[in-house]
């Protein structure tokens, strides 16, 4: 702000003095400003250049390997979970991607459930039911005040580690299995015409947006509300189902089965992922609940009274009047909670979930000794992920911002 002002002022000053034509070019404030800026950039460039070359020289002198060639070298160790095919002979570069995807996965799951928990308990604060209100307080006060690492350990060592062994798994209809090694779910394996159902799902999702628009218009015109939520759910389930029936169920179900030491087949959710995702969701959810409470409290009581006098039901007042306005307070807070969640996901190392920090700054750094390179790459990733979150949340914030008339 301040800088801009001075530039504006100097500009106008320059314009005024320009008329004289007598001033030397080095007295021209514009040129001088430019000169100093160039000097600053050069100075900074030189600064970083010296620091980096200094560090590299020192590392060379102490016999530490430098450079990024290790990214194409074979890692030689295995990673517990990978969303893309991976084996021990793959490169450190691939490990980087594996870790990155695992970080995105646990952060995504965490953000989804933290938001859900946060909104449910945040709104529950204002319930007329004493028990519900108390539950919200207890939830927030408990989980917000226990260090996250402890919670991660709790879910992993105290809860999930006590599940029965692989050969004594709990099972649900011989299709879903739960044991100390994870949750095993059946998987749909599509054949020939399965794509029709996938397309149908896509259409259904796109349909939701169309439906919302249409319902909004209709309500504005006629005052008639439309149950968008239920219709959307029906659409997302119904359309693909219809497609499957019409195409004659073109899929088989792969059930997990015990072969030797472990269950194979189907989808495996490892306990490290479960524990970390639960801990992150529950912990961050308690902060989001506080944010939601703050947001709701920021709405003057007059709004509720006005809504009541219009004859709206309590539930509707919350969802139609209060929460949409409260979002202006909540969204910026959500932004920082989401960013913390992503950063907190690095606690993965404590229980061995193979997130980026664990497999890269942990194991890869240890095996290659290339601290500067691995840490630099990892910092950049977390920085970029958080920038993207910030960008999206700012867009969202603009969308919910008060439109002044």
């Amino acid at each position: 702000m301040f800088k801009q002002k001075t530039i504006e002022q100097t500009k106008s000053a320059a314009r005024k003095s320009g008329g004289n034509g007598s001033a030397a070019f080095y007295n021209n404030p514009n040129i001088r400003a430019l000169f100093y800026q160039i000097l600053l950039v050069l100075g900074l460039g030189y600064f970083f250049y010296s620091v980096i070359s200094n560090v590299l020289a020192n590392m060379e002198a102490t016999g530490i390997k430098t450079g990024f060639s290790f990214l194409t070298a074979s890692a030689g160790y295995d990673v517990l979970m990978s969303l893309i095919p991976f084996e021990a002979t793959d490169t450190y570069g691939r490990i980087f991607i594996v870790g990155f995807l695992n970080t995105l996965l646990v952060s995504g799951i965490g953000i989804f459930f933290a938001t859900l928990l946060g909104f449910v308990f945040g709104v529950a604060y204002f319930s007329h039911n004493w028990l519900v209100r108390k539950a919200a307080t207890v939830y927030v006060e408990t989980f917000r005040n226990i260090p996250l690492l402890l919670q991660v350990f709790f879910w992993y060592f105290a809860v999930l580690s006590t599940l029965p062994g692989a050969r004594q798994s709990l099972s649900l209809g011989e299709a879903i299995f739960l044991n100390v090694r994870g949750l095993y779910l059946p998987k749909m394996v599509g054949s020939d015409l399965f794509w029709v159902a996938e397309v149908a799902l896509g259409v259904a999702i796109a349909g939701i947006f169309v439906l919302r628009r249409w319902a909004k218009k209709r309500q504005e015109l006629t005052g008639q509300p439309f149950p968008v939520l239920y219709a959307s759910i029906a659409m997302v389930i119904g359309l693909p189902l219809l497609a499957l029936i019409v195409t004659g169920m073109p899929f088989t179900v792969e059930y997990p089965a015990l072969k030797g030491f472990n269950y194979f087949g189907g989808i495996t959710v490892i306990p490290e992922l479960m524990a970390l995702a639960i801990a992150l969701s529950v912990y961050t959810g308690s902060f989001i609940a506080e944010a939601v409470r703050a947001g709701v409290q920021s709405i003057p009581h007059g709004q509720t009274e006005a809504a009541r006098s219009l004859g709206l039901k309590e539930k509707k007042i919350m969802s139609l009047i209060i929460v949409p306005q409260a979002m202006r307070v909540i969204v910026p807070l959500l932004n920082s909670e989401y960013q913390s969640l992503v950063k907190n996901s690095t606690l993965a190392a404590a229980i061995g979930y193979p997130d980026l920090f664990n497999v890269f700054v942990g194991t890869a750094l240890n095996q290659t000794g290339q601290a500067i390179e691995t840490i630099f790459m990892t910092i950049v990733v977390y920085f970029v992920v958080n920038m993207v979150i910030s960008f999206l949340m700012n867009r969202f914030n603009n969308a919910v911002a008060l439109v002044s008339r």
Partner: protein
Amino acid sequence: MRKKDILAITTLAATLTAGAASVQAATLDDVKSRGTLTCGVSTGLAGFSEKDENGKWSGLDVDVCRSVAAAVLGDADAVQYKPLTAKERFTALVSGEVDMLSRNTTWTHTRDTSLGINFAGTNFYDGASFMVMKDLGVSSALELDGANACIQAGTSTELAIADFFRQHGMSYKAVTFDTSDQTRQGFESGRCDFLTSDGSQLAALRVGLSNPANAVILPEVISKEPLGPVVRQGDDQWFNIVKWSLNAMIEAEEQGVTSANVDDKLANGNPANKRLLGGEGELGANLGLESNWAYNIVKQVGNYAESFDRNVGMDSPLKLERGLNASWKNGGIMYSQAMR
């Protein structure tokens, strides 16, 4: 205002560039002026480096720290121990957080040549093995196809096991943990079918199980794991001190010098005894130490055999055989370079 900023930045940059000279201070001087040696050890591994309820550290690896402190400071107790996980250890050493590592660390080519560290010898010849629960009914590592492995992150074991399974066309899943305690818990809870690590550590972890009799160590030894103390690269004097402190323990066993007879050997022993213990020659001075450097080691810590028996051998819960770690005079490969 801006001019000043630029000036400050340029000066800072200039200073930093000038700082590109040698970063290696003499570790010996640091240790002497501090009065204590900081030694990186494990976070707790029976027989190797373990803290008792009084906060006192003991173990085969701890004895190497103690012998260096005895040689340098004349006091084996002048050690500050820094527990490090496998992942932390090299960074801690290279950054100067510890003066040396004595943390069951395998001497590998890659570590020696690319991490900026030097291995100062071998104080235990080991190899990676497997431990399973008896009720799994497995008697050979070759029956472990498709099994889950509990491994400590950042170890050479991670690499050894990947090789072994690939070589035999078998598959496995690696569940990695940060500390040996967590690794053991993972194994006990059934998260994995077997725990893999160096044989000596398996013996140590087995002792820590709630019921050691339930677990067995499989016969296969799948790798070479020579374990030894490590120092930063670039400080040759310190490298020599650590190397020869370990050698002094080994040499003392070869010469039959023990903590009990060391005074007698110094007074009435043969020339080799006297040279080792500082009665003759310049060995201490060549290291930049007092002449009684090795005397202090043997007197306060004991020779290698004493340390072995007390910490991991027959007088300990681990009950490990000397095996490869017997003195070369008794058919092992534990051998000190010539002490002259």
